[in-house]
């Protein structure tokens, strides 16, 4: 497929331009000294300074880090175990577990949000950070399991067999061979899970109740108040953070394939 395809290249560049121009526009505006309109009136870091001294934003960021950190830790643990169980063992009802483990990925997040509110209300559990974290974990587990399973599949089964032949028990095989060799996939899964939780607005919005503030909730209320240069600055920072997370996840996934190549060589 190495023929030159000028028409495809034109479409590609147009789409790329269309994808990035709006984001770059926000980034450029965040350095604009002018408060209103799109007239450029000089480079300025005013809005970043204003953002840094905004206590509400700082508090929301801390809340978000705690919520997403906790949810990521637990979902990575549960999701990794799920991946191990699904890829290494056959048991009755496995298809059912597989299906219900992939359904949350296909369920529109608003349905998850509504269902959680109805459920928590029925159980008399008051909405707050606990319910946000609990919902995020359910949302993250399938993605973690999916990524870790892909990593486990590229692992040479001969390694585990060798460990068994050398007298290792099931638990030792898991903790000394299987999990260490899947470490980069697990790390990639954790980064992805964190990004999913940190960026989530809809599920959080429904399960938050009043008196809670994570960063996306804070952003939403700022947006409802209209376009402000401070929002531009905040978004530019989040964009850079997103690029870093994406880069980290793809590097980790790359290490995964490098790892399995190493194993194949040995």
């Amino acid at each position, binding site marked *: *497929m190495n023929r030159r395809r000028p028409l*495809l290249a034109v479409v590609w560049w147009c*789409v790329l331009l269309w994808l990035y121009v709006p984001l770059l526009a926000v980034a450029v505006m965040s350095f604009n000294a002018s408060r209103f309109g799109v007239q450029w009136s000089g480079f300025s870091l005013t809005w970043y300074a204003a953002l840094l001294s905004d206590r509400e934003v700082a508090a929301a960021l801390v809340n978000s880090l705690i919520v997403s950190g906790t949810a990521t830790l637990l979902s990575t643990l549960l999701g990794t175990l799920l991946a191990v169980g699904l890829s290494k063992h056959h048991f009755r009802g496995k298809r059912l577990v597989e299906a219900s483990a992939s359904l949350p990925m296909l369920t529109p997040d*608003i349905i998850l949000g509504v*269902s959680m509110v109805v459920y928590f209300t029925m159980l008399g559990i008051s909405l707050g950070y606990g319910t946000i974290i609990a919902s995020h974990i359910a949302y993250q587990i399938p993605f973690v399991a999916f990524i870790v399973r892909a990593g486990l599949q590229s692992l040479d089964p001969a390694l585990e067999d060798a460990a068994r032949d050398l007298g290792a028990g099931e638990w030792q095989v898991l903790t000394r061979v299987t999990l260490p060799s899947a470490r980069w996939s697990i790390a990639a899964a954790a980064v992805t899970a964190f990004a999913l939780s940190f960026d989530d607005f809809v599920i959080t919005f429904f399960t938050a109740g009043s008196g809670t503030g994570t960063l996306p909730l804070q952003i939403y209320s700022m947006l409802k108040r209209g376009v402000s240069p401070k929002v531009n600055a905040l*978004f530019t920072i989040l964009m850079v953070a*997103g690029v870093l997370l994406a880069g980290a996840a793809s590097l980790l996934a790359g290490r995964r394939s490098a790892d399995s190549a190493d194993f194949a060589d040995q």
Partner: protein
Amino acid sequence: MLLAATASPAALYLLLLFVVPVLLTTCYTSLRDTQPGARGPSLANFAALLEPVYLSVFATTFRLALLTAAVCLAVGFPVALYIVSRVKARPFLLLLVSLPMWTNLLLLNYAWIVILRREGFLNHVLIGLGLIGEPAGFLFSHGAILLGLVYTHLPYAVLILYATLERQDPAQTEAARDLGAGAFQTLVRVVAPQAAGGMTVAFLFVFALGLGSYVTPELLGGGKVVMIGTLLQSQVMEMGNLPLAAAGSLCVMLVALALLAAFLFAGRQVGEERPR
């Protein structure tokens, strides 16, 4: 066999905090009658959803989700073809297309507000070029929502289409070209038919996500265009009418489940497309 149990904590978690909540909401709460003194299950909530107000919300949602899926497919296909054709640059190009997925959904929509609003870039440019005299209101329209939905869903479509196209044997296109087929003919008669399964998956996936969208219609529609997401949110948070929201959720869920079945079927077709 100690390890056969490793899947159980997560399975239990998903059962208690995904399967049960969704089933309870869709199959139990949706049947609850909110009328005072009413007893037993009733279809009152579903009957309420048949009121013209709600029917038009459903119609708008389906139309916009269908359009979004169609545009994503039409734009995503050539993009995926281009990425596949640049063999060495594939990973980098894929990363370029998928980067927006790593950005906050609120930001992706906000970026378009900055472009489209009355004091925004688009009006600025159009007035500067002398094409229009007065700033035009691009925001808060079906068009703005469609633009936002395509913008936020295109990466998914490209990734799915790429996965199918990448598996095709380049020798087949070469053969078609050597036998005298033009680029267009090769595309229509060789490449596209083999990618039919992947195209179906991409279309259905984007459609399902589009049905449940909330942020885009809220920010770019500004309350003037109401989709199901906004309806559900207002029933839960403003009206406190959980049963009606539950009934609406069931409708969306049923469509999503029907799509899942189609999805699995199409997925099997994709599996069969591997070069033999």
